[in-house]
Each structure stands twice: as structure tokens, then as C-alpha cells.
């Protein structure tokens, strides 16, 4: 066989590189809404992929495991996340953000601004300022939207921002997109649930169960208000808190919703194509 000329090889390599650059610049449109409840162990992390292409990561689990789960949920080679949303700075929600900020390109970070005196929080603030990533503070009444998709921020309102319990300051958001709605409740307890139920129409197709299935959350009246078709509990196998509690599980069972949990199902993804909701365990 004749030896390939070096010029031809270089031209081919350049052509491949060119094709790749276009591929990476052009946005990808899948058209469906996908919400991944990442299996990060005992902690919260949800990746929302909007029909318009934006990717939003709500919380990051307790440690670096979120990186592996992101690697599985994001399309191969995707290195950009538009928004990181920190609901509140507890260890099992903030733990993986520093790793993510080190490895992914991030558009902006959304948070309440309420901090916590821990090494992880300090490291998080440090990397945000080192990498000059904009941090935007959210309150009740704010909205994040892209095309038909919108996140309505329902909490924290001013009366809860100074609460002694950090869980009360959690960002609660309601996502509506592709004729489906998702309620993300972070770690709120029954008092806050009652407060929100009085103030808002909370009906949602999918509920991220509050506080990993703690018995002080997921009250009967709140679940009746939300009346979810699908409920997902983010919880780690054999955790020391006894989550999810049998109290919460029995109240969830009474609603008729299909309950998924990361400790038993692994990663759980809910997809909405505008007509049906489908659940994928991966």
C-alpha cells in the first residue's frame, strides 16, 4: 500500500477538528424535559434539562460522588452547566459543588445568600470568587425561565430568611414545562409546608419529597395539596438518620403516587414530552 501523504493526513485532521467545533458550538435540541434525580447517596441532587437546552443542577449531594452521576446523566462530552442552584448550605446539599465548579464550565450560581460556618462553605465561596462566577440571590417571587419553561421560586420569603433552622431557608421551586410540573422542596418541614400550602396552588405532577423522607415533613395536608403522580425520595442506603421514615412512606403511600427512591432504584429520571410522563431508572 502506498504511504499516505502527510499533507492529506493534516487536512483530514483539520477537517475532523472543524466538524467537531461546529458540533460543540451548535446547541442540542432534544425537545423534551428531563429531570434526573441523581443517586448521590444520602443527599439531594437534581439535574434539570429544559426543552430549550438549558441545564440546571439543584444541589450536589454530600461529596464528590455527584461527578460520577453527572457523567452518567449528561450527554457524553457535555462540559457546561448553565445554572447551579444551592437550596441551602447544609453538607448533604453543597458537598459536591466545589468539585463541579472545578471541572465544569458554569454560567451562574443561584442561592439565598445565607451561609454556614463550615470549611465546605468557605471553599465554595472561594472558588466562586476565584473563577469569577456570578452568584445571584433568589427570594420568594423570583422566576427563572427559558422559553416555555419556568421556575417559580416559592420560598424563602422574608419571614423565613432569618430562621434559626437552616432548612427553613431552603429554596423551594415549582417548575412548569411541557405541560408537566415539578415541585422541588429541598429540606423544608411541615410548618413550612403548611405555610406554602396556604399561600400557593401547589399542584404538581412530580414531587421531590422534602428532607429525604423525614417524619417531620410530607404532612398529609401538604401531600393532598400537591397530589403528585410521582414522588421521588433522595436517600442513601443504610443512612444513620433512618430516612425515609415509615411515617412519611405511609403518608406518601396514601396519596396514590408512585414512589421512587434512590437507595432502592438507583438513578431516577422523569421525562416529559408534552403528552406523557415517563420514568426511567438508570
Amino acid at each position, binding site marked *: 500500500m502506498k504511504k499516505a501523504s502527510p499533507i492529506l493526513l493534516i487536512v483530514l485532521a483539520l477537517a*475532523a*477538528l472543524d466538524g*467537531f*467545533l461546529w458540533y*460543540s458550538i451548535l446547541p442540542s435540541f432534544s425537545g423534551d424535559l428531563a429531570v434526573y434525580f441523581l443517586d448521590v447517596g444520602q443527599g439531594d441532587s437534581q439535574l434539570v434539562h429544559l426543552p430549550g437546552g438549558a441545564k440546571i443542577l439543584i444541589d450536589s449531594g454530600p*461529596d*464528590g*460522588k455527584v*461527578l*460520577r452521576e*453527572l*457523567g*452518567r446523566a*449528561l450527554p*457524553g*462530552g457535555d*462540559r457546561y452547566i448553565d445554572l447551579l442552584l444551592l437550596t441551602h448550605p447544609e453538607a448533604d446539599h453543597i458537598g459536591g459543588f*466545589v468539585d463541579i465548579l*472545578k*471541572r*465544569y464550565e458554569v454560567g451562574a450560581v443561584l442561592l439565598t445568600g445565607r451561609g454556614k460556618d463550615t*470549611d*465546605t462553605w*468557605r*471553599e465554595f465561596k472561594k472558588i466562586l470568587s476565584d473563577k469569577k462566577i456570578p452568584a445571584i440571590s433568589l427570594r420568594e417571587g423570583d422566576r427563572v425561565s427559558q422559553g416555555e419553561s419556568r421556575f417559580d421560586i416559592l420560598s424563602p420569603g422574608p419571614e423565613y430568611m432569618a430562621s434559626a433552622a437552616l432548612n427553613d431557608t431552603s429554596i423551594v421551586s415549582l417548575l412548569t414545562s411541557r405541560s408537566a410540573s415539578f415541585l422541588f422542596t429541598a429540606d423544608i418541614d411541615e410548618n413550612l409546608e403548611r405555610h406554602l400550602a396556604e399561600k400557593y396552588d401547589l399542584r404538581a405532577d412530580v414531587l421531590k419529597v422534602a428532607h429525604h423522607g423525614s417524619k417531620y415533613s410530607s404532612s398529609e395536608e401538604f401531600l393532598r395539596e400537591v397530589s403528585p403522580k410521582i414522588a421521588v425520595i433522595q436517600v442513601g442506603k443504610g443512612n444513620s438518620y433512618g430516612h425515609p421514615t415509615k411515617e412519611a412512606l405511609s403518608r406518601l403511600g396514601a396519596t396514590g403516587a408512585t414512589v421512587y427512591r434512590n437507595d432502592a432504584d438507583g438513578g431516577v429520571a422523569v421525562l416529559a414530552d408534552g403528552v406523557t410522563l415517563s420514568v426511567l431508572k438508570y
Partner: protein
Amino acid sequence: MRIHDGAFYAASLFLLGIAAASLGVSFPVVVAAWAVLAGIFAFSPNLIFIKPHSRVVLVSLSFIFLLGWVYFNLFYIAKEEVLPAGDAVFRGVVIEEPLHGERSQEILLRLSDPYAGEVRVYAPRYPEFHYGNLMSAEGEVRKSPSGALNISGFPQIKLVAEDGGSAVKLALLKFKNSFLENIKRVLPDEEAALAGGLTVGERASFSDEFKDAMAKSGTTHIVALSGYNISIIGFAISFLLAAFVSRGKAFYISVLVIILFVIMTGAEASVVRAAIMGILVLFAERTGRLYSMRNALVLAAFVMALVNPKVLVFNVGFQLSFGALLGIVYLKPAIEKIFRLGDGVGFLGWKANALTSLSAQLAVLPVLLYNFGSINLLSVVANVLILEILPFAMALGFAAGFTGFISYQLSLFTGLLTRPLLLWQIWVISFFGRISIPLAWDNFPPFLGAVYYLLIVALIVWSRRAPEPWEPRPLASRLPLS
């Protein structure tokens, strides 16, 4: 006897003495052993490896066996440990870049006055400590279950100062970190971890599940740096430098880069061995001398034992690295000859790879059983499937890390090229991590290992003495291997 043969015997005898001392053999017994050894050298019938005129030299060299024993014991006395007792405050310098793991960091601390010795400290992930940091800790120091390590689990730690450590090593580690960051920015987590392991031996990013899968599939060695890495570096340097500098300068630069690479990656046994032998290859090329694998192996072991006599018996990585190479150099030709496998390499060289893996595995079998209690009989299959593409995965992994210094977009591209290879390896490792035919043997008796190795040596010697056109035996001819 030629000088290089003399050096070979001297180094071997020294290593033998160190081995005896490591195993706790007392001085009178060692002297008796020496007398027996000298007796064999002086009066034994003519064995193949002792030529008559070498006897005088060998008898005089046999004293070096005693020297090895003395060296080990002196070294051991000089390095005595003084550990803090109970809950105590201790200070120390971080002497290796800590392993920044998924849940915690692992810091190797050299204790400062009034204590002495090394302690492995486990700490929360943040704040991150680094090589050269001077830190103080309050907590307990315990012996590890095996007794080989000192451990302190989550003491209260504080950073005292940042500027300890050598400037060269600091710069190298900084470079390594940027290199790894480049990889991590363009590859999903699992693949990035593997690429980091293949190129610079980074292991902190592996999940426990993946480490377990590597151990069960018998593929952990691919993330231990070895001759592959050194060859790729040597090749890349000669390629880059060929156009610009003379061959003389290229030699010095190559040697320097190899040494810097070893320091940068933390000088684990396998890469030190590979580096010493690689430098010897370069030296042989430059001076036009013959490269002797036998002498290179023994010289590498000798240098490493001189720096730290404990590696010989107490460092499993050292034993696996040398054992596997000895298997490839001596056992592989023997198997080839006995089973008449001389011709054909197979698709992508799979036959050669299978034989290489098999020889290496056979050579380290007792070491693995003794230290880990079991091996996977399918590991040869897993290794063949991985070794086919290992050099390409390594080379592309290096490319992904280096192109990141030029342009992020470019490294995304090289990263993309690397992904299929990494995904394939991850798949093979996970698959053979689940599907295994384990050969388990708890408390493998060392004397059985000794018998095993004697049999292997006998096999090698026998195969060498066998006449060249080997008559096919009925058994051998029916083996599918030929």
C-alpha cells in the same frame, strides 16, 4: 569473569543479604548461610552458572551477602520511630501530595520533634492540604492492622505554614495538577479518573466500586506507572527534540525528564524500576554498549534497595513489578519454546499479549495469593482485552492533558478521541469485576511459594537446555494455543 558479571553477582548477593535481614534472620544463622554459600561456590561440581575460573571471584564476592544483612540492620536502627502516645498534639510536614478523595483526604505526614516517623492522617475534604504544608494535629496515632503504617483518623488539624518542601517538587506537582485538571475538564468523571491513572498514576479520583472492580478483574496494574509510560515519554521527547538538538543533548534531556516524571508522580516502585531500566536503555544506545536485561533488572533492584532496603520484602508493588517483568523476560520464552508458540502474533497482537499476561501472572501468582488471598483466573482474558489498546489510550490521554495547555477546545477534541478507548477499558474492568472465577487461598503458606518458584526456575533452565527443534509431544500438539 567479566566486570559486568561480577557486578551482577555482587548486587544479587547484596539483595540476598537484605532479604535475609528483612525476614528477621539472625546474625549467626546468616554467617552459617554465608559459609554454605561460599562452600557451594568453592567446591560444588560444575553447575551451568559457575564456570571454574569464576570460583575465586565468587568466593571473595560472597562477603557482600553479609554486607547486605548489615546494611539493612544499620538502616533500620537509623530510622527509629517515636510516635505520640494517646491523645496528643503533633506537628509535621506533608511529604507527598495528599490523595484528595471523594469523601476525605489522605495526608502523609513526617513528624517533627519531639516525635519521629511517618503518619498517614485522614481528614475532611476541606480545607485541602498540599505537599510541603506544615501542619499541626491533635488526636491519636495508631498502628494499622498490618502494623506497617501509622494512622491518625480525623484529628483536629491546622495549617501552620505553607512553604515547606522542595521547590522542584512543588513546581512538578503544580504541573501535574494542571495536567489532571485539563483531563478532568474534558472527560466525564469515571473516564477522567482512568485517564489520570494511566498517564500519571493518579488514584485519588477512583470510586471504591471501580477500585474493587480493578482488584477483582486483576487489572489494577494498568494504573501503576510502568515501562509503558516511560517509553511513551521517551518516544515523545525524542520525537519533539529530534529536529532541534543534537543526539547528545537529547540524551541528557530525556534522562532529566524521566527523573522529573518519577519525582512528579510520587516515585512508586513500578515507575522507579521502569525509569532506571529506561535510562539504562538510553545509556546503552548512547555509548553503543549492549543492553543486558539481566543486569538492568538487578541494578534497578540494587539501587532501590540501597535507597530503602525495606522495599525488597515489604513493598508489594516492588515485588509485583519485578516479578511480572522477570516472568515476561524469562518465563515467556520458556513457555513459547515448550509449547512451540514461536510464530504468529494474532489480531492486534493478541497472542503475544495473552502470553505476556499469562507469564506475568504466573510469575506473581504466589505474591498475589499471599497478599490478597485470591486471584481471578479470568484476569488474563481481561488483560488481553485491555492491553490491546493500552498504549493508544495512554498516548491519547497524555495528548488530552497536554493539548489542554494550548486550547480548551483542542483538548475537548483529543478528549473525545480518547473516550471510546477509556469506555472500552472501563467496560472490560467492570465486566470482569463482576464475572470472575476466583482462585482463593487464605493464609497462603510462603514455603509453597518457594516451592512454586523453584519449579518455575527449573522449568526455565530445562527449556533452555532443550534441543532447539523441539519434538512435539502429544499433549502439547493438542493444546489450542499452538
